[in-house]
């Protein structure tokens, strides 16, 4: 897997952050740029305006639970979020992250990261480092088959390469 390391400022959230609060249903009628202005409105109104490009969301258990709406990870990505670290992910949200090229990092000790700290993520090694303290947290390394899709920048790019070479 060739995904390069990611480093950014941690923006922390709790357990069971659901896709209805990440992108409330009323915004789904709109296109991505508009949706990106409202991410996390259901739990932290105004959050989209506070994001600096390259920030990393750090969540608790079952991040992204609920509706399958892919606009949840797409909206976060379009708003500038570079990766999501969580204790565990809801399965569809996890898949959606891979498919849109936003790294989902499963890290049992994610709750040790504090708001505003800088985290550095090594996806291939399965490692999250809190740069401020030097603390190194174990994360789940992605299986190669899935890492390939993420490394391609998401499912569409992955498909483009495969469909262009149907015999591969």
């Amino acid at each position, binding site marked *: 897997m060739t995904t390069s390391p990611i480093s950014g400022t941690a923006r922390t959230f709790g357990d*069971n952050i*659901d896709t*209805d*609060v990440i992108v*409330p*249903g*009323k915004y*789904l*009628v*709109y296109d991505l740029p508009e949706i990106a202005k409202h991410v996390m409105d*259901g*739990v932290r109104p105004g959050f989209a305006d506070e994001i600096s490009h390259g920030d990393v969301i750090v969540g608790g*258990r*079952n991040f992204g*639970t*609920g*509706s*399958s*709406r*892919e606009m949840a990870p797409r909206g976060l990505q379009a708003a500038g979020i570079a990766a999501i670290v969580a204790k*565990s992910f*809801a*399965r*569809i949200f996890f*898949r*959606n992250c891979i*498919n*849109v090229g936003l790294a989902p990092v499963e890290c049992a000790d994610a709750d040790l990261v504090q708001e505003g700290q800088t985290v550095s993520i090594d996806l291939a090694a399965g490692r999250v480092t809190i740069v401020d303290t030097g603390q190194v947290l174990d994360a789940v390394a992605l*299986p190669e*088959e*899935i890492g390939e*899709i993420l490394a391609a920048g*998401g*499912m*569409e790019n992955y*498909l*483009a390469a*495969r*469909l262009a070479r149907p015999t591969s």
Partner: protein
Amino acid sequence: MPMTIAQKIIARAAGCEVVQPDDVLWADVDIAMMHDSSGPRRIWPALERLGVGVWDPDRIVLVCDHYVPANNVAAAEILQTTRHFAKAFGITRFHEAQGIAHTLMVEKGYARPGELYLGSDSHTCTAGVLGCLALGVGSTDILGVVTTGRTWLRVPHTIRIRVGGQLRLGVTAKDLILHIIGDKGMDGALYQVLEFTGSAIDALSIQERSVLTNMCAEIGAKTGVVPCDALTVDHFASLGVDVEPGPFSDADAEFSATWIFDGHAIEPVVARPDRHDDVVPISDLGGPPVSRAYIGSCTGAKYEDLAMAAEVLRGRRVADGVLLQVAPASRAALQQAMSDGTAQALMDAGAHLLSTGCGACPGIGAGVLAAGEVAISTTNRNFRGRMGSPDSSLYLGSPYSVAAAAVAGSIVDPRQFVGGNP
């Protein structure tokens, strides 16, 4: 090697003799579903960029349910795009305003026992009631499926649920699954398959069983499955389709856990606002007043749900200050309710009948909630703001409980209205 239903279905779809839990592999999909919200509007531009068509138009089901009926121009355009896609790609199983996708998949038997079915919606798991492996995914995952017919999977572990005894009068599958979710938590089955067995499950109708598989999304499960039995075979026979019972998990297959419940001990329950795993018996609730009662969604507005509500409402009136709204889960459900007096009973009691579709459940269609409103609903989720304002409050309950609350003006044990013993 002994395998669970999920392993057997994935092994067949992946062309392997044996698959082990946690294996990551690519598999051939038997049938795919997408709807107006997650489907063509999201994937058609990508299909054009990729310069490809669809893998098999006869194995793609396309349903307009989220934005039906359109109440603004943007919604009308989403529906139009979906319609144009069906025509452009020759999708024959296209349904607009006929019902909610998950309800149609079961009614029409589109997913068969033993098949691998992927749909771009989290409640795709509903069809697991037909003995298939029904997996919810997002839009780009379904893009991969409709272009190649394949998808990647992590082979899941399976939790076996055994519900003994029988549910009592006035107690429904909704009460049972809410009880299970309350007991195990909203991530209690993360990444795993729930397999429903036991005498209380055997005794339930297909529609009631489908409430169990539907709400597997609310416990974090990959999906739920009810093995195809004589009742499932009869359901397919009524559609003119011949299927065999099974597949079944091998007796010595490895389950990650077995959860045992006593059907007789289940009471009418509700989930309290903002968390569908905050589940309490109605008898412990203290009768909170409600101003809105909503019967809708793939979970709670099938024909039998409407009939349960009518059982409570027949000869009674919706209380002053309460608005009872009913959005049937399908056209067929409404037609059956019209033909046997069920719909008349709802209307006579004062219900406001809405169009079939996802409606207010995802906060998109008619019937959403204002700040300060307190509602009880037959739907599946009560995340903050799910059905409208983030400052509304939403309880989840059975059709009996929602109808009973509409009559009483507060959440009460519905068994007093249907002859059950509290």
